[in-house]
């Protein structure tokens, strides 16, 4: 089996969870991956300081789409203050595959979007 394109990665890529629009929503953001021009947006509904629900939308490679899909399941129910503290390691560990330096931004795009929506921080997660 391929190291990177494992079955669960391809499963999330082909059937991404929590993709689409979410209306009404409280928070939103849209970001681009400058490497390839891919874009990813998010709609977030907040209740009692937590992410009650969220949806991603956009297009990208298997790594960026699967990362968003996998992260979406963890982000649901998470406190906003906790989301603000999430770093690159959280995402890379969650993904569970060896991500090369050039594909790192693909894996981190979803976290960048979510943090942008939650805290207005548009920097790449480190």
């Amino acid at each position, binding site marked *: 089996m391929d190291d990177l394109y494992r079955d669960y990665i391809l499963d999330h890529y082909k059937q991404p969870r929590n993709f689409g629009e979410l209306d009404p929503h409280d928070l939103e953001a849209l970001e681009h991956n400058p490497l390839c021009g891919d874009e990813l947006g998010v709609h977030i509904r907040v209740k009692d300081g937590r992410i009650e629900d969220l949806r991603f939308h956009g297009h990208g*490679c298997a790594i960026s789409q699967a990362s968003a899909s996998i992260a979406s399941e963890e982000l649901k129910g998470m406190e906003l203050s906790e989301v603000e503290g999430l770093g690159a390691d959280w995402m890379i560990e969650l993904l569970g595959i060896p991500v090369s330096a050039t594909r790192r931004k693909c894996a981190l795009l979803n976290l960048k979007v979510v943090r942008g929506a939650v805290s207005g921080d548009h920097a790449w997660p480190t």
Partner: protein
Amino acid sequence: MTSRPMPQVADSAVLSGVRADFPIFRREFGGRPLVYLDSGATSQKPDVVIEAVAEHLRSHNANVHRGVYALAQEADAAYDGARRRVAAFTGADPQTTIFTKNVTEAINLVAYSWGRANIAAGDAVLITQAEHHANLVPWQMLCRERSAELRYLEVDDHGELSLDALDSELARGDVKLVAFTHVSNVLGTINPVAEMTERIRAAGAVSLVDGAQAVPQMPVDLGSLGADFYGWTGHKALGPTGVGVLHGRRELLEQMEPFLTGGDMIASVDFHTASWNELPYKFEAGTPPIAEAVGLGAAVDYLSALGMERVRAHDQALTAYMLERLAEIPGLRVAGPPDAERRGGLVSFTIEGMHPHDIAELADRGGVCIRAGHHCAQPLMRCLGVSATARASVGVYNEPADIDALVEALIRGREVFGL
């Protein structure tokens, strides 16, 4: 099994024995020989270029145009000798052949020095939808600064421009400059440069041609192309990085103010005024890329020895073979002209169900280097209705077996994706 016969490459056209001149092909990646299909991004370098740079640094290094000692004169001779060889390679005059950092700087030089003096409010700059950001953003900036209009010539479904559309744009009377690529870095299209520059000149406008993908691949004779400005870059033409070329029409270059200012480009400097050195030095401020220019001189000598007609035939034969073989892959769509005669040595494609980044990653599993992304041409990507493509491009050292390795890797990649 399919009964379809295996496509045949026109063997007589393919250069042989060239690969041995390029030391990088002695390397292996993951136990496989390197299959390099990304020459459109940068070419590999032959031993003669590497050695020319090293020998210059080892034995002839001094700054140029300043020293009176013998070593400095050797450096002068090497740098200006490289300029003469580079100019001869494209049929240009050494005095109107300016060394820049790359083609991006060459275009910025024109946008800054010619553009700021000649583009005013109400004027128009015409470019094409297929331009690389290097031949797009400088014109955006200039037009915004000057309240001029930036207009685009459309490319059709086969990636080609319409001369009738060019005529009607020029007939509007406000176009002062037309900037376009000789060979598209995404579509591969070879644009009809001579036909276009003739129309542009007749309309009283100035032409600028981006030759980055053309000069490494085909005979380029500036006399017959008729462009007012023609830029290209060394590193795609077997030379080192850090050196590019701008050829300009003498009358225009003489009227222009300098782009970058500083040492070497002046005739004399007073406390409050300065006057400019003669061509081409007026446009070469500061210590130039001396060793890099020497390397580029060696690169054009190497290409000339191969013969650019033969290089073109080689690229075309491999491209035709690549188009045929890629057609075997289900869901693969090629962008640009369907026929290798009308394209340079590159093919952009998409595969249904696979993102171009994943295509490139999976090609790398088979040791095959191809590019994926927007290729610095985001407006064109929007015209094509995609965010990115994968691109395979050939060079003098490629062989039909490289194309076979690509096709094999793509077939295996589709299997990984369960397609």
